[in-house]
């Protein structure tokens, strides 16, 4: 679904699948307002509000257990919010049924913290999974071509027949990223894309995300502990503490902040 003031262009080099959006959206790609979420007696989110325009990347930072991943899961509908609203490209999705959410999710890609690759499928089949289920009009050859293109984008074209168990953590993240991009989403959600990776692999993932961002002009939300990574790939940063957004802005604005928690966080990052 597209908003009325969006324009789609078709790159000549990429017939059929790749579409890119041209700026002109008045609605943010993702807007969450006043999210509250508790698990039993534990309050995780206490009025979180965030907004990401199309083509921008927001990094959500914070200590462990401050609700960063929960926010991401609420945006894609894997968790239900206690109160508050989630709007995707101007469409309020709070309270959607699973079938209604399906249409919205086709416009979103999600990279899980542990990649969550299907362990009974090889790399190629993992990346093809969304295409098999949502591009039923594509021939097998077209699907395979698209999968190899995606794997090539993430530098995994030579590992297409491997099983997830045979891949390193960094390689699994790359495959997860390729799968998240399979339907050419407007919005990309990344949950700790560099967690558990060595500095070189983290840097490679950062470069990859940045490259894909520039190519696809998606709206992205990146949940991370890694300030260096956030600084590298995000336009803006939001710092969460105790279920609330303490500050949101550019890295320079965070650096200038007088809020003790922000100073403390930056000092120890």
């Amino acid at each position, binding site marked *: 679904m597209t908003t009325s003031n969006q324009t789609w262009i078709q790159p000549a080099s990429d017939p059929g699948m790749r579409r890119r959006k041209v700026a002109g959206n008045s609605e943010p790609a993702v807007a969450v307002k006043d999210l509250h979420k508790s698990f039993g007696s534990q309050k995780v989110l206490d009025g979180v509000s965030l907004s990401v325009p199309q083509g921008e990347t927001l990094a959500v930072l914070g200590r462990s257990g401050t609700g960063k991943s929960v926010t991401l899961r609420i945006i894609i509908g894997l968790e239900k919010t206690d109160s508050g609203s989630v709007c995707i490209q101007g469409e309020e999705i709070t309270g959607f049924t699973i079938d209604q959410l399906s249409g919205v999710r086709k416009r979103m890609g999600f990279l*899980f913290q542990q990649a*969550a690759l299907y362990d009974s499928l090889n790399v190629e089949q993992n990346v093809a999974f969304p295409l098999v289920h949502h591009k039923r009009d594509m021939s097998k050859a077209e699907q395979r071509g698209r999968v190899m293109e995606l794997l090539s984008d993430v530098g995994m074209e030579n590992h297409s027949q491997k099983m997830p168990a045979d891949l390193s953590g960094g390689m699994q993240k790359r495959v997860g990223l390729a799968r998240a991009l399979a339907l050419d989403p407007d919005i990309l959600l990344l949950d700790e894309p560099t967690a558990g990776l060595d500095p070189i692999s983290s840097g490679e993932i950062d470069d990859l995300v940045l490259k894909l961002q520039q190519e696809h002009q998606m709206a992205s939300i990146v949940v991370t502990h890694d300030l260096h990574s956030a600084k590298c790939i995000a336009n803006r940063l939001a710092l969460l503490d105790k279920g609330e957004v303490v500050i949101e802005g550019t890295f320079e604005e965070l650096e200038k902040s007088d809020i003790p928690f922000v100073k403390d966080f930056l000092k120890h990052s």
Partner: protein
Amino acid sequence: MIPQENAGSGIQSVPQGVQDSVPVDPETTGGNLIGDFLAWFGNLGIFFWQVVRAAATPPFEFAEFFRQMDEIGSKSLPLVALAGAATGIVLSMEARYSLTRFGAKSLLPAAIVFSVIHETGPIITGLVVSGRVGAGIGAELASMKVTEQIDAIEASAVNPYRLLAATRILACIAMLPLLTLAADACGVVAGWFAQALAQPLSFHQFINSGFQGADFNDFLPPTFKTAVFGLIIGLIACYQGMSTKGGAAGVGRAATSSVVLSSLFVILADVVLVKIIIVFFP
């Protein structure tokens, strides 16, 4: 926990409800056993409704359904056939001893055939499948749940109730009667074999004598009641798997509870179904 009709995520909505009303597994919990059991049963009902709704609406996952039929049906066949044959041999030996004592040895083929197709074939098939398939489904789905693979399916805009649960449950329902036929056939043949070893009797004579007076009411209802066993096994195993939590320990619990609960409910259902068959197919 209330059904979350409008819950954002389908798979999460029920397990979330389940998790909020834990403990959900009556087999492993103490304390308020009745309350826990009722909560578990209610959540199972909600899960069933979600699966029915997903199964009734397109797109239909035929490829996965046929894959599950192979996984559940053909891969269970050797075990079911062996169990059916062993049952036939045991029945033959036991019945021969008892009937000889009462001077009714000529009824031995009928006793074996009727026992196998009426009760032992269906129940043995149900229990063997609940052990092999119930544990397999429970462990597989639980493993997918704790490694976020089910969340990944949902995030890919695919309904996991349709792809994972409905296909497995329908495959169980379709394959149980076919497996029962195999168990029945092996039981009858093995029963004849055991009988022939003790006293020479042609297979033709054994079958003629065994099926004398039998009609479709002796055969069809007991065979097709195993479709209900299939529903029970598939439903409980899928539910236990998809609502699990707690890492590797949770996977183990899901596998164990799938087998224990599905076996228990298969036996209980058999009691009810036998009564229904006696009333409606005298």
